[in-house]
């Protein structure tokens, strides 16, 4: 894509009133019409070669995730091994995009994936609530990058957003951005807590203006996590932001996407909103764990004409 000069949407220093006026220019969202559009695109019939292409692409877009209190080095090593070669019986299956872990687990993931092209993403900034002093959150992010994470998934301060303190949300993101060097920044909006699609659209614009490389729906710790309605609204925000500034921002729905069929519906939504320019793991990711095995199962079905049971796919 030809990239013309990038325009900053907000001149520095950024003030509260500048942000208010910037967010005031964001179009409102009609939730009923969003659901209708999403339902319409869910009827797309993806078969044969186009299904094979979609499954391959979806596998390459997975951020293979484990985010549990009980995560151990052993668990993370197994997950990272699977990330490189998802199906040991089939070498044509590509690696996934990244493994996504807590900061303490980053060294164990890095040790496995180094040199493979698989990235290591760390959820940082006091994930999932973000309710800690800024210096604690920054230290968390710095520690993750120092340990070798090249992607940081941060959470925004939803409390501040809902209280109307958009400047604080903005400044937090800028501070994280500055503290993680060249690492890739994904900003988690936790859309399940923002509740309305109007909020989702405004928070998306705010995060992008503050320097997000990706915007991401959810932590996976709050229900609802990713939905296609929310994702469509975030795609539309990304499109508007690109038109406004020339900057390309990626998108990551995360949480609750378990079926290959569902993943393909997200890709349809992507293709028919942002277009083929976004059909790359550089611009779209799935935050998921169990999705990968269903994608593998569907690939196997396309190739062999039958479904395999669960125990043909590795559990990590």
């Amino acid at each position, binding site marked *: 894509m030809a990239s013309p000069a990038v325009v900053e949407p907000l001149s520095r220093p950024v003030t509260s009133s500048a942000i208010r006026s910037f967010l005031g220019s964001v179009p409102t969202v*009609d939730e009923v019409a969003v659901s209708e559009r999403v339902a319409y695109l869910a009827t797309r019939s993806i078969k044969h070669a186009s299904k094979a292409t979609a499954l391959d692409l979806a596998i390459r877009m997975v951020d293979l995730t484990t985010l549990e209190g009980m995560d151990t080095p052993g668990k993370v090593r197994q997950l990272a091994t699977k990330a490189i070669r998802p199906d040991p019986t089939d070498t044509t299956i590509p690696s996934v995009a990244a493994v996504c872990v807590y900061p303490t687990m980053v060294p164990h993931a890095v040790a496995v994936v180094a040199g493979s092209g698989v990235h290591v993403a760390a959820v940082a900034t006091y994930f999932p609530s973000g309710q800690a002093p800024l210096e604690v959150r920054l230290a968390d992010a710095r520690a993750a990058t120092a340990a070798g994470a090249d992607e940081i998934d941060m959470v925004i301060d939803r409390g501040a957003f809902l209280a109307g303190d958009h400047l604080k949300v903005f400044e937090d993101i800028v501070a994280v951005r500055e503290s993680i060097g060249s690492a890739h920044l994904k900003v988690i909006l936790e859309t399940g807590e923002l509740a309305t699609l109007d909020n989702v659209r405004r928070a998306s614009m705010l995060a992008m203006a503050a320097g997000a490389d990706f915007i991401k729906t959810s932590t996976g710790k709050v229900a609802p996590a990713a939905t296609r309605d929310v994702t469509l609204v975030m795609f539309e925000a990304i499109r508007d932001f690109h038109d406004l500034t020339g900057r390309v921002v990626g998108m990551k729905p995360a949480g609750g996407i378990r079926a290959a069929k569902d993943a393909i519906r997200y890709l349809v939504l992507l293709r028919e909103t942002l277009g083929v320019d976004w059909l790359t793991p*550089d611009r779209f990711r799935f935050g998921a764990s169990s999705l990968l095995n269903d994608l593998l199962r569907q690939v196997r079905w396309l190739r062999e004409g039958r479904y395999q049971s669960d125990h043909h796919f590795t559990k990590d």
Partner: protein
Amino acid sequence: MSDPIPALPTVDWSYAPSVESTAIVAIPAEQGLWIDGSMVESRSGTTSTTINPATEEPLGVVAEAGEEDVDLAVKAARSAHDSVWADLPGRERAKYLFRIARLLQERAREFAILETLDGGKPIREARDFDLPAAAAHFFYYGGWADKLEYAFPGIEPRPLGVAGQVIPWNFPMLMLAWKVAPALATGNTVVLKPAETTPLTALEFARLTAEAGLPDGVFNVVTGAGATGAALVAHPGVDKVAFTGSTAVGKRIQESIAGTRKRVTLELGGKAAHVVFDDAPLDQAVEGVVNGIFFNQGHVCCAGSRLLLQESIHDAFVAKLKDRLDLLRVGDPLDKNTDIGAINSAEQLERIRRLVAEGESEGGERWQPACDLPERGFWFPPTLFLGVAQSHRIAQEEVFGPVLSVMTFRTPAEAVEKANNTPYGLSAGVWTTKGSRILWMADRLQAGVVWANTYNQFDPASPFGGYKESGFGREGGRHGLLPYLGGVA
């Protein structure tokens, strides 16, 4: 901002054709007329061939009913009315309607494919809209059949007699359902004349009524062109005329029945305004506008064919609209991923081309997305006309095709004035976040339906019909019973 990830190439992902199989549909090579419960040969002896507008290939031969045939059909309907149907208790009539509705649901896929083959509409629409809505109408009016006394308290409702119904080619099954369901529910019998380019589903529906055990003669089909319709409307044995189609034919029908006792409802053309204010949810409004004009290739009487944009958002909105039109998938109607199918007939394609050429010669700026159209069949790409003035013909005449005229306004009052500045008054759309403005607009727009922050929503319980030259009478809802009832004040 540096990007640490090496740029991975994008994937040019296109959808493989996903074509609905036509194996379950059997079209008789030659079909007669459905009169008095069976398929009979026409007395007229003349026939016509119905074709698939997407391929121009013939689908089957159908009869063209002459005056004698129409007379037989009306007599069969009269006899069934007098001997069995009119005096059947409402709860018994209801059973037939429910049975028809259920059979339509069971055979929905078959009817949807037939509708797409004969009419050119995308299978997705026939499957997800036309057939479910048609079945819903029979369910809905089946529910009214034994409650007519409660619908209009204080009056003893009586059927009028024989209803002569003439329907268009844009939604053959749905228009059939809109007409036939309330007529049967109220105890009338029917002679239906489907459009000449789309007779197949009506004939298949006739066989379905036999499957449902509907008494002979209650429902009759006479196929043919304008002359057949004229003969039906003019037949002295017809008590009630219901017509959906062009305003020109509607006027001729009114002339032909003037001075007779016949009751009439007309659902005619439209040139609906779709008004978008600057505070609208813009991306959803773009979807609404696209749905409003490109649904069913724009072959919709209530299509939102005039886009009125608040001037301050014109450029941004048109840019979004163009981006969206680039994504529309035009092509094989049987492909489940097709958004826009074939134009219904060579005649209609010719009319669209003529009006578009006139629009250009008047100074409108035509814009069309790049799209490959099939070589055979009747096709027209989705089209925008920018810089349209209220005085352009493209802003006044009904195109009945995928053509949207874009105009601007400055104030709400100006939007209302422009929206109403047409001989038609069937429908209108308003997009704004302000609830009070929606109500203010709805009070002032002269249109039978005003959709707010949506478009093309239909429900059997909701009446539909026009103002001014868009016709009179309502179809759907309790209101839709009235045109079929005598004994009502």
